[in-house]
């Protein structure tokens, strides 16, 4: 009988620091694993990085109103998919995106469905 739970670290950083943090991770040879978000009373955006099977999570907490985030596509170009997703599904404004789909990443029937209050008027 065993339980397999992987050791994972989590640090919370300020919104302003995330780009530096990402650049630093990139320099250290980490790979961007994913960016995810949880929207409840605030927005918790979690960046995950991996190096040699060790996973490091970095979290940024954004306020509920007018959430904005700087893009880390400068450090990790691959982040554009995740950040476009943040824009489309959560309504977080990501500034400085290298490849900005401008809300057309997905075609949705509900605007920003994962935001605390999904905006209904689609079409």
């Amino acid at each position, binding site marked *: 009988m065993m339980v397999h739970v992987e050791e994972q670290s989590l640090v919370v950083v300020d919104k302003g620091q995330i780009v530096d943090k990402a650049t630093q991770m990139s320099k250290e040879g980490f790979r961007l694993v994913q960016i995810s978000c949880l929207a409840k009373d605030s927005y918790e955006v979690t960046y995950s990085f991996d190096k040699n099977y060790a996973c490091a999570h970095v979290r940024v907490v954004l306020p509920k109103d007018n959430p904005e985030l700087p893009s880390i596509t400068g450090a990790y170009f691959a982040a554009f998919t995740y950040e476009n997703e943040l824009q489309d599904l959560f309504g977080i404004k990501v500034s400085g995106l290298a490849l900005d*789909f401008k809300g*057309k990443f997905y075609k949705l029937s509900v605007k920003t469905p994962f935001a605390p209050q999904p905006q209904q008027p689609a079409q």
Partner: protein
Amino acid sequence: MNILLFLLLFPAAMSLVFAILPANTFRNALVRISCLLIAAGSVYAAFVFNGQGYQSFKVEFPHIDMIFFGGEMLLSLFLLYKCIGIKKHEWYIPALIIVQAGIMAYCEMSGAVPEVDNALYIDNLSIIMALIIGIIGSVICYYAISYMRDYHHHNPQMKDRQRSFFFILFFFLSAMFGVVFSNNLVWLYLFWEITTLSSFILIGYPKTEEATRNAYRALGLNLLGGLGFAGGILYLVKFCPEHTVDLARVIASGPGLMLIPVVLISFAGVAKSAQMPFSSWLLGAMVAPTPVSALLHSSTMVKAGIFIIIKFAPVLSGTWAGYFLALIGAVTFLMTSIIAVTQSNAKRVLAYSTIANLGLIVACAGIGTYETLWAAVLLTIFHAVSKGLLFLGVGSIEHKIGSRDIEDMDGLIVNRPGLAVVMLIGILGMFLAPFGMLISKWMCLEAFVSSSIFGLPTGVLIAMILAFGSAPTLFFWAKWMGKIVSVPAGLAKGEGRVPGDEWTALVVLAVATVATAALFPVISWVSVEPYIVSLYHQTVSLSQGNTIIMSILLALMILLPLSFLAYPKKTKLVPRYLGGANVGDKGEFLGAMGVVQQATMRNYYLAGFFSEKKLTIASVLVTICLIVTMFAVVKL
């Protein structure tokens, strides 16, 4: 003989008139009438002399030879004058002029130029050439009336020098008649140089930097050829035991005595007919207004080059020099056909295809058996008609759609059906069975395979080159046709009609293209075969079976488009397939990032596969080697 003199002098006379008259309705009417008269004159000449074989005439005029000599010297002086203001690296142009003038003066001064009894002549080849010059040349001049008006309308910054334009145009025709009717090689030489001069001025017509450079390049390369001509005359006058400048006698003397001067003069022909390595002047000539291109490509200039080679074919026949001349043509055909694939500028495609076809003719004439000569003459006819049509068509299209790029011609079948049909006829004429070019190509193949030198099957190599060279032609013509017949969504009928003069010219040539295809057994029987018989005492003629088949094919080609009118059009129209991403029915689709995009379709130019630059360099090198070899083996 009067009709010959008329053809020689009337255009020249009219050219002087046009040099004075400004562009107005009276001038236009006069141009039209002159065109008609020249065409009528050439037809009359054909009517009178056809079937009479070789006829020569004595020109009774005091000091006529001195007049010609004076003309040559004047011409040289004029050219030298024109060389004021050339660039440093173009020093060779005046040098060539001086050398040529020196050679001619030396011949004349030393009093060694023999008399020619009958300075003018006409035979079946001359008749064919005269018809090409007379009919197609004048159709082009006719077309030029409204074209030049529109041309200056489209290019207001350019100075209107139509007077000198029409002056040169008619003078050019005159010189061309001179080339095909002169039996005296010295006379021929003057006419030859006049065509060089005329083309030089016409190419430089737009007076832009590019046009001027290209004009000088044309001049330089043609003078290089002219040097060969002058050298040929020098040899005839000074070294040849036969000691004659009588064209007919030169040909009759055969390769034993005459091969050296003939090869020298053929070299001039190679330059004039823009074979590799000289092809660049003809490409540069594209900067000139379209009637000039049409004239240079279809009825004058380049045709002078191949005329002289065809004329000498009996001498070249069965010699190694002739064989290498043929190889130059064959290599040019293969290479320029491939290069034409990479071009999207319609006029450049036409130019490359011209060079390629001339290459074929040179190859035929170089081999010089009766079958290949037959093919060469027919090729000349078919090429002149179709090419004239195509150039004029492109000119009209350019004025209507504002571009000469093939890519911009999509939907022509819908928005300008008339022009599209004309172009399609022209293109069909260039490469598809049962039109002329293909028939001739087919005859060449047959002829090459059976030709040999000293029992060696040398013609096979040329046949192989031909087999490979035909394939790219198929590709670039067909894709051009594809562009014309494709129907983009949401295309409206174009506005504004093609001017009447242009349209008349186009229709005449289109009808001529179909007619030459339809009547080609007649053409062959009436005028080509007698010429071949007169030289070789035997000739080819198409088997009856094949003629019938060709007729059936042609009938199909004509009937099928016509039957389209009767074809049921009750199909349901749906949008084109765009992977299900269609938006509306105008060929638009919902692309990435939610942008509605227009699907565009472009032809292939295989730029990554064939490189124009590399191929040109390679073929220039190869052909230079071939030319050197041609001269080297002349003694063999």
